[in-house]
């Protein structure tokens, strides 16, 4: 790969849509106007975590004046799902979590729709529930999906019909007996992570309408307009060409708006609305437990280490609290399996990652896709073992972390990686080994570090496409299928197009997604867009550029290799001739003989990884499990109040190998946003569930960190070891930024006051309780 000098890539341009967002001009789904014809949708939801539906009576709801549509699972019995088709649009004969939709109503006003929902009578026969994944995986647990074996399923998902296990990813590598024999210290421990929610600023919002030709348009606040088109078309048995998904600006996703959650219900209601548009917007409470949440985890880690700190073996069992439907979650379980050791070279591995159905909210993609959860366990475990052996946690990580060419847990040789650099730089920036002074009495300070890795988790062949069209004035339109949900896709697209074409960034306009006009993009997930879509844009730019250069070369009678486009002008290095792009990119050019050449310039590009291989179902081994890993480390300094248990994060350092920072400021804001979100999950966040009932679906009692809770100081370090197939060497950073935050903070808390918190979040009360236990029950009172 040759990387030429860049003028636009590597510069921190202001976000291209920031003006529209700051002034309020940017339109989100809820801002779109549909006039007085608009119907308002509401969903009738299950109050029970697990029950058979004996009877649904919608007659009173239908009789209510102003109610136009009432639909139930009987109307749409089809199942859908990204990797495993286990999810109905409305429950058909059984409800599996509190909040599951059993019916939908569209009415003239939201109040009427709500009232109609109240009038729907549902008779249930309650069933015993599963509220713990370890129990759920046991033979005693009641079955949540008796038909698991009949669902359509991706070939790389290994379900166990007759159990609640919808995917079981195994790693069997090396020789465990030898690994334990070589160890001087073997430590085994269990860690827990609760379900949490993404809390995007904008909740899920959709409007659907069917026109006179039966064509359906869905306006959707989505990370996955194309995946939504695909899944909804398939579940309704209609042609993809009959469904159009439009995604305007999106107010945050963090994974919650990946795939399909409530969008199918909106389309289902619109299909019976006689051409009237139907709007369905989630309330904040609905957002908390009815769309997607992050899966919970029970992680059992057993690790062997030599007295000089080398990891000899790992036996890890991950029980995922995947919720009522695991259509997306099965692949999180898989990702956790092929990343199960963390970013370390471990010769002997026995890992089981089990996706377990529970009667909890539905687990889906969330920033990190299983990695924050498993690193919570692995990275604390390493620190505890290092302390037992009297070793420095930074040195232990440097010793074991994957180096170029070493085998990963699935047998893939690690590509060039800046992981060691990230660990070193994070440690240095936090002042590793240098104690700092607490701010007052009863306060103690400590520092902690954690490393991470994460690969884009996706099918082996997710594709991206892009087109570039020129306007008469020499500006261009870039069409992409990637969604900007706040992470900067539009800006990255503009920078890459401008760099690839040789025109100023001001001359590039990037469109939001409309599946009828935008080229295909699998989904905006997995931190894959800058890398994958970026490659498609560069290919499109190259094609457009060649169309222009060949045209000019022909007219000028020059060799195309002597021409380039610089700052919006075609220039010749041979003759020093120059011509602006204006007009020629649409009208073509007149040759000396009076005839014409060229025409409207349209560049198209695509990208799809072709080299990922299947893994053996029994050993998890294969030549290439994933496209690549982004690696990094975070270091935290905390101050703990020994009396109240409060934890204040003083400083958080993030260091990641992003391959190439296309826009360094945006990379840094990803790191900071991830650090704050990671800190928030570390200290505060948890969906509190009691027998499947969510107890805190409001911001009153689901607290998230705000600006005043953010670390007092943040430092962001960019490491650039280029990715061989990344645009200018770039890899993703969106999710990675919160992966090691929680264990780094936990390790810092442990360093400060010597207590170990096995279960996230590290609440003040947990620290207080652990401190009391440490002092002895009667020590202080």
């Amino acid at each position, binding site marked *: 790969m040759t990387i030429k000098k860049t003028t636009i890539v590597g510069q921190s341009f202001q976000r291209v849509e920031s003006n529209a967002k700051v002034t309020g001009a940017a339109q989100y789904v809820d801002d779109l106007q549909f006039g007085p014809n608009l119907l308002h949708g509401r969903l009738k939801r299950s109050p029970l975590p697990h029950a058979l539906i004996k009877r649904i009576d919608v007659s009173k709801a239908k009789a209510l004046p102003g109610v136009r549509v009432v639909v139930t699972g009987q109307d749409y019995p089809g199942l859908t799902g990204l990797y495993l088709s286990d999810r109905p649009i409305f429950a058909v004969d059984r409800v599996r979590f509190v909040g599951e939709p059993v019916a939908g109503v569209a009415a003239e006003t939201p109040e009427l729709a709500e009232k109609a929902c109240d009038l729907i009578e549902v008779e249930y026969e309650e069933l015993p529930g599963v509220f713990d994944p370890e129990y759920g995986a046991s033979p005693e647990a009641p079955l949540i999906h008796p038909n698991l074996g009949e669902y359509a399923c991706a070939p790389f998902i290994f379900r166990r019909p007759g159990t609640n296990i919808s995917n079981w990813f195994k790693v069997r590598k090396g020789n465990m007996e030898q690994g334990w024999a070589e160890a001087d210290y073997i430590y085994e421990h269990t860690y827990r992570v609760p379900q949490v929610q993404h809390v995007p600023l904008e909740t899920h919002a959709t409007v659907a309408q069917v026109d006179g030709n039966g064509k359906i348009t869905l306006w959707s606040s989505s990370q996955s307009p194309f995946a939504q088109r695909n899944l909804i078309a398939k579940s309704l048995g209609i042609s993809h060409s009959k469904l159009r998904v439009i995604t305007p600006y999106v107010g945050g996703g963090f994974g919650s708006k990946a795939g399909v959650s409530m969008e199918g219900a909106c389309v289902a209601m619109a299909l019976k609305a006689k051409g009237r548009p139907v709007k369905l917007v989630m309330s904040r409470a609905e957002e908390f437990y009815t769309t997607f949440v992050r899966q919970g985890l029970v992680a059992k880690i057993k690790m062997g280490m030599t007295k000089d700190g080398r990891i000899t073996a790992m036996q890890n069992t991950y029980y995922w609290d995947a919720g009522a439907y695991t259509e997306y979650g099965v692949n999180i379980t898989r990702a956790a399996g092929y990343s199960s050791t963390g970013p370390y070279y471990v010769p002997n591995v026995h890992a089981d990652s089990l996706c377990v159905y529970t009667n909890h909210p539905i687990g889906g993609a969330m920033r990190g896709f299983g990695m924050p959860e498993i690193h919570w366990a692995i990275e604390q475990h390493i620190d505890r073992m290092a302390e037992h052996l009297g070793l420095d946690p930074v040195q232990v990580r440097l010793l074991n972390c994957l180096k170029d060419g070493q085998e990963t847990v699935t047998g893939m040789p690690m590509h060039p990686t800046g992981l060691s650099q990230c660990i070193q730089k994070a440690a240095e920036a936090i002042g590793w080994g240098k104690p700092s002074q607490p701010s007052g009495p009863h306060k103690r300070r400590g520092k902690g570090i954690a490393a991470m890795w994460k690969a884009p988790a996706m099918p082996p062949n997710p594709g991206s496409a892009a087109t570039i069209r020129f306007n008469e004035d020499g500006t261009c339109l870039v069409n992409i299928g990637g969604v900007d949900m706040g992470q900067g896709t539009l800006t990255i697209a503009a920078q890459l197009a401008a760099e690839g074409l040789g025109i100023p960034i001001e001359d590039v306009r990037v469109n939001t997604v409309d599946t009828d006009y935008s080229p295909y993009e699998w989904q905006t997930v997995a931190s894959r867009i800058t890398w994958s879509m970026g490659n498609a844009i560069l290919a499109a730019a190259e094609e457009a550029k060649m169309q222009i250069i060949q045209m000019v070369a022909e007219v000028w009678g020059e060799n195309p290799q002597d021409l380039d486009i610089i700052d919006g002008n075609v220039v010749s290095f041979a003759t020093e001739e120059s011509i602006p792009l204006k007009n020629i990119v649409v009208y073509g050019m007149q040759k000396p003989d009076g005839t014409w050449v060229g025409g409207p310039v349209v560049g198209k590009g695509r990208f799809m990884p072709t080299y990922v291989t299947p893994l053996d179902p029994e050993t998890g081994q294969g030549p290439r499990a994933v496209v690549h890993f982004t690696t990094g480390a975070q270091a935290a300094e905390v101050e703990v109040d020994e009396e*109240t248990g409060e934890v204040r994060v003083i400083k958080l350092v993030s260091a990641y190998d992003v391959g190439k920072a296309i826009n360094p400021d945006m990379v840094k804001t990803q790191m900071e946003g991830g650090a704050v979100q990671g800190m928030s999950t570390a200290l505060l966040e948890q969906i509190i569930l009691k027998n499947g009932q969510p107890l805190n679906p409001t911001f009153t009692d689901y607290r998230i960190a705000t600006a005043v809770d953010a670390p007092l100081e943040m430092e962001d370090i960019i490491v650039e070891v280029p990715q061989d197939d990344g645009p200018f060497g770039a890899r993703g950073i969106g999710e990675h930024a919160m992966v090691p935050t929680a264990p780094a903070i936990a390790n810092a808390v442990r360093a400060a006051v010597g207590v170990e918190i096995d279960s996230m979040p590290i609440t003040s009360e947990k620290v207080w309780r652990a401190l009391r236990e440490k002092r002895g029950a009667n020590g202080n009172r």
Partner: protein
Amino acid sequence: MQPFDYVKPKTLEEASALLLQHNGQARPFAGCTDLLIRIERGFLHPDVVVDIKALPGMREVAVQPDGHLRIGAAATMNQVALHPAVLERWPLLAEGCASVASYQLRNRATVGGNLCNASPAADSAPALLCYEAVAHIFGPAGQRSVPLEQFFLGPGKTVLERGELLTAITVPPPAPGAVGHFLKLGRTAVGDISVVSVAVLGWPDLGAPSGTSWHIALGAVAPTPIRAAEAERLLGQDASPAGVEAASRAAAAAARPIDDIRASAAYRTDMVRVLTRRGVERVLAEMRAS
């Protein structure tokens, strides 16, 4: 959200009559930062909301000729927290009001609403209890006044009878040399409901064995905001470090908290001890310094 009628009466008599007429289905409406949420979530279904903000004196904060502070029941948290006289003479109250929710919400939320909701965690209440504030009530039988300590009956319950509304709070001037602090423990730095709160007010008192007298009030650890009388008495006896520790334990003993999703009773009880001790130490240090 269920529809309701909105009425904005001009006189206290009219407001009281409206509250009576609707057979308990009318709710007074001030900042609406709690009421609207409860209606939206379906916890309350009023037919009528009675906007009390136009009633005479409801939005005023002023020092009366007798030196008492008068806070109209619809005065906002920010009005009180930023009022020069409050900052100078009742700073403990300013601290309590300033700790409520966010700045934007404090532009709407009212002290009267905070008290009438009768949440055990009402952050304006502990300071007002320390200052021995008085609640002034208007109703069908006319005016009456109740010491704030007797105003709360339980979570969500006050002495207000049907047709009655809170019109004002008056706060007597504190003793000369009084120093107060409000300590609030929440899960996040700003905007959380108190897990535990403690207001401490101390002043020099040559008649007391310790040379100081104290008022201490606790929030979120009993069915209502409460005074910690035994802790106050002990500090009057002995304000040495040992006395402070004993008083802090007495405050913890006065707490009757519950387990809920915010914290356990055991944690809350111990936090009363910690916050009381810290509050008293801080007040003592400032009293010594002045």
